[in-house]
């Protein structure tokens, strides 16, 4: 399947996931979730609309790291670049092949900018990858996110190359 077709399929799947997610939307306290449901075929995902919420307890278990390539991001962006889509699709394939395994997506930032804001940005990156996986048909309750902001760099330089490598999403499989 070509990239374009896979991407379109993903979009439709996301729209379906968003729509069908209403049935299982976790009960929230306070003022509750947004009422708007994304119409089919429109923009990737309405993140934060409640339908992509995470319920239950944070995942814990035996971690498998380094099985998948990190997904890289542009500066101050949580958009999934076209070049990174195949990496996420490989993760989706693995999750389909092992239906009992769960996934934590770790979001990271480069050292620039406010530490506190970077923690939120790292979470947005992890959530963007999660939404893409849900769009590919992976069940939302198998995927959680964890942001490290700028706290866990893999490259320790203070230059463009180090920053590029640090702006990333990493995948951790749980048994």
């Amino acid at each position, binding site marked *: 399947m070509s990239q374009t077709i896979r991407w379109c399929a993903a979009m439709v799947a996301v729209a379906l996931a968003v729509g069908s997610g209403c049935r299982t939307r976790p009960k929230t306290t306070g003022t509750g979730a947004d009422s708007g449901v994304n119409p089919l075929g429109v923009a990737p995902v309405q993140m934060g609309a409640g339908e992509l919420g995470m319920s239950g307890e944070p995942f814990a278990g035996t971690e498998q790291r380094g099985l998948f390539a990190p997904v890289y991001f542009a500066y101050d962006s949580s958009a999934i670049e076209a070049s990174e889509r195949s990496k996420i699709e490989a993760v989706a394939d693995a999750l389909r092949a092992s239906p009992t395994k769960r996934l934590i997506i770790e979001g990271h930032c480069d050292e620039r*900018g406010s530490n506190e*804001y970077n923690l939120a940005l790292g979470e947005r990156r992890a959530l963007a990858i999660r939404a893409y996986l849900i769009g590919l048909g992976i069940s939302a309750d198998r995927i959680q996110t964890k942001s490290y902001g700028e706290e866990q760099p893999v490259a320790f330089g203070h230059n463009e190359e180090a920053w590029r490598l640090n702006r990333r999403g990493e995948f951790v499989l749980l048994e």
Partner: protein
Amino acid sequence: MTASGRLTAAFAIALGVVAMTTAAQDIVVRKGAAAKATVDWAGFSAPSAGPGATLVQVARQDLERSGWFRTVGAGGEFRISGEGAERGGQLTVALVLTDAGRNAVALNRTYSADASQARTLAHRIADDIVKAATGRDGFASSRLVLVGNRTGRKELYVCDSDGHNLMQLTQDRSISLYPRWGANNSAITYTSYLRGFPAAFRIDVATGRREMLAGFPGLNTAPVLSPDGRSCALILSREGNPELYVQTPPGGPATRITRTPHAAESSPTWSPDGSRIAFVSDMSGKPQVYIVSRSGGAPQRVTSRGVENVAPAWGPDGRLAYASRLGSRFQICVLDPASGAVDTVTPDDADYEDPSWARNGRHLACARTSGHRSSIVLIDTLTRDQIPLVSGSGDWYSPDWTK
């Protein structure tokens, strides 16, 4: 005009001028700097070594750090006389502060403390002197909570207002972030990866007991107690996106305040009366500071200058300090929300981030990063004077003053 009258007037002018242009303010700030009163300790006798000597040395430095005083050998506008003596492990101080201009006694008090508490007693005396001379609260008795990485991990530390008595508070070997005092300084809230993911915690300072306020899947961060201690603002992503919430009571049910499906929120700070929350959102495309009612509604953007404006701290007089990316540097700016006037209070020689107001509404502690090393400095927003507080042995971040 008496010295104390001049001091008060200078401070009032400097605050009032925030509403005017930057140029006008510079003039008044220079006036403010010139308005420091002279103080002498010529009439005060204390041992030349030991706790009594420490007391005088620490109190003198506190008065200089307060921004209101310049120490002179004799003939000061304010004169400190009396005696400090140690007997049987007990430090006793009889102190008289004379306002020479008015020829009046401004303060006449005796103090007593265990000799091991000489520094603490000195801070208390310095605050009494500032209050008696200026009518303003001092901050010498305040303490800081901050983050340090000298063990190789980010842990919480506390220290005195002069950086002394630095003590490691957590020993988690995890990542500890964004500590904030709350509930009349009886509690510290912060973010920790203690359980393997970013969760919000509260430490009871007296007992050391710790409880988790929020540990949902995803992000739980930046918990800050409201001024009355009955609520906690924080950032959660459990509904699918980082948003601002308020828990009442802290650790209890969370009400969602923002609804920004395409943006991330961070860094909440309460208004002094607890009715509003300032926070950072990138809903405009870049992180900027917004204000929202604690009960929700439409957030109002309050920063415009600067590519990024982050880490707001709401001061006791209503002014907001935040870190603003101006050119290639982060600088500390102070905004008067009533007038919209903005004042940059740091020089362009380093990155300055994470401001926190001292209880006098005049001084800020913040992180200063130069050559990829971070330390904590004290900034007088009136005079722009800068004093190092905590540096060396690793990096230091995220200071927060007791209120």
